[in-house]
């Protein structure tokens, strides 16, 4: 008998009786007008810089002022207008490892923890947001939700082969609990929130 069948048979024999049905209760959620302030607080607490801008062009201007040379930036968001276009960026992993700044669109932002949902549709290769030194995420204010439960109600996790919530630059505290920002992934992160009417 295969291990699979043996395991399943044993589970069937040993599993406990089903508990009484449980109706998920309603959970409190932040008010829509509070989402922006809460999101900004959360991204700051996670070590990112949050910037509220009126439109995508403002993101490009902000980056130009700080990074000067567009060669330092790989941009995957149409409308930002600064940085190397991704189609011309070299996507071999050794060259990718040299990427300083990557600009990536987020699908949705979560106010309670500052996490931004990014799927493989937003990036040319899955590794880009992890390999760059400095990650720039762009999310629309209208795409903010309050809690993780609201987030999952608004995304379909298997719509693409890969998706991730990113909640700040990479970090570790594995040496004596001292927080160090910049473990294996990005050392710095910006989150641009594109303003919109609610």
């Amino acid at each position, binding site marked *: 008998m295969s291990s699979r069948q043996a395991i399943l048979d044993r589970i069937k024999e040993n599993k406990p009786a089903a508990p009484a049905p449980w109706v998920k209760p309603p959970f409190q959620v932040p008010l829509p007008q509070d989402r922006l302030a809460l999101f900004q607080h959360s991204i700051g607490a996670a070590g990112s810089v949050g910037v509220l801008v009126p439109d995508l062009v403002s993101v490009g201007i902000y980056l130009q002022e700080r990074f000067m040379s567009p060669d330092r930036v790989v941009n995957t968001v149409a409308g930002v207008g600064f940085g190397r276009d991704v189609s011309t960026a070299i996507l071999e992993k050794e060259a990718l490892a040299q990427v300083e700044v990557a600009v990536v669109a987020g699908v949705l932002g979560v106010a309670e923890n500052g996490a931004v949902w990014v799927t493989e549709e937003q990036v040319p290769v899955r590794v880009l947001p992890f390999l760059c030194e400095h990650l720039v995420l762009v999310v629309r204010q209208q795409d903010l939700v309050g809690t993780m439960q609201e987030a999952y109600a608004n995304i379909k996790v298997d719509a693409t082969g890969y998706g991730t919530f990113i909640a700040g630059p990479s970090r570790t505290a594995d040496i*004596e609990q001292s927080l160090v920002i910049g473990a294996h992934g990005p050392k710095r992160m910006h989150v641009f929130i594109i303003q919109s009417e609610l």
Partner: protein
Amino acid sequence: MDKLTPKTIPVPDHPAAAAAFQADAERANWHDQALWFIREKRDVASKQTPDWELLRETASQIKEHVLAHLDELLIQFEEKARENGIQVHWAADGEEHNQIVLGILRQHGIRKLVKSKSMLTEECHLNDFLAAQGVEVVDTDLGERIVQLAQEPPSHIVLPSIHKRKEEVGELFHQHLGTEKGASDPAYLTEAARQHLREKFLSSDLAITGVNFAIAETGGLVVCTNEGNADLGVHLAKVHIACMGLEKIIPKAEDLGVFLRLLARSATGQPITTYSSHFHKPAPGQEMHLVLVDNGRSTHLGKKDFYKALKCIRCGACINTCPVYRRSGGHSYHHTISGPIGAILAPNLDRQKNADLPFASTLCGSCTHVCPVKIDIHNQLYLWRQVLAQDGQVPKAKAVSMQAMATVLANPKVYRLAGRSGRFMLRWLPGVAQNKRLNAWARQRDMPSPPKESFRDWYLKNRKTK
């Protein structure tokens, strides 16, 4: 069970190992404080989250549902995962798990790999097994890399190197990574590890990860890290192998909304881990495998008093809060998973070898109080003690003294006699009661000064005079 020699520190029993840990008082105090600091961060995070108790109850209910429907959920998950292009393997035990992983490696002719944190692979002793086959395994979580270089097992499931001081890490990195002698700044050492591991990520063709949650409804899996090491490893490799214990399954993607709100807050006090990555399909040109491991879980499921330990989501909150763990260190538990949850999981795997662990507790209940999925940890510790005592698996001295205690407490006359002789001894021969060799209880404590009479004597006398 597999026959490999695990890389464990030789420890005879928990009390002896705890005493050895306590011998270095400065380190023991630091360890205690470091873990309490994390416990306090967890408290703040939980109190800032509305509906925290409702979240715990919901998570608990979801997990109870999972355990009652585990076979159906696994079949549903397997079917969906296969549709997604994930190759699913089943392993009855650690040995079979290791052989499956080796088979995939051989198929691709791979001799080195990167691995992100996976307590399951620790449980199966995968690293030692692969090393014996000439495969280089590089653990990429910083804490795990530290203990790997030190040739030690992790001492904590979330904070693998919490027992190490920064000077010790500095010395290890000096020897292995060429950092400056005597350097111990965490930021400097972390940067050195980043550069060292970046090269490993870029040159590795295969990545192993653990699994935090597997979604039956969609056939995908979720891996949570703060460092980004799981993602870097997987996305730069041609082959991804994810290894998970059977109990990591959850019914629906929406359940993640509950678990991800609880996991990091309970673990470190963060509102969420930096990365919560959802893998559903291999990237173009990539191959993805999932190994489902039983290793005693399906048997454990049948134990009425103990199966609820399988609800665990491995946050480590019970470990951080445990007054015994904080003062005895993770290695004193001589099991992959230390602390209270380890002490109730370990006897399911090997009752004899782990008979000391359910006694490594004060039964204060703090573990149960912080558990995000409401496992009755301290009750199970208490129940294990009874099972082990009935099995004759407690030390002779403890069994005999418990038997004597039972006789005394069951018989009022004997009880009164014992009380009188106790008071007599404490008053007239205090040296005997305080003798730290004769009385183990008095080793860290002073005996109380004896009352003149028992409450019963006092009561009888005073009632008469009224």
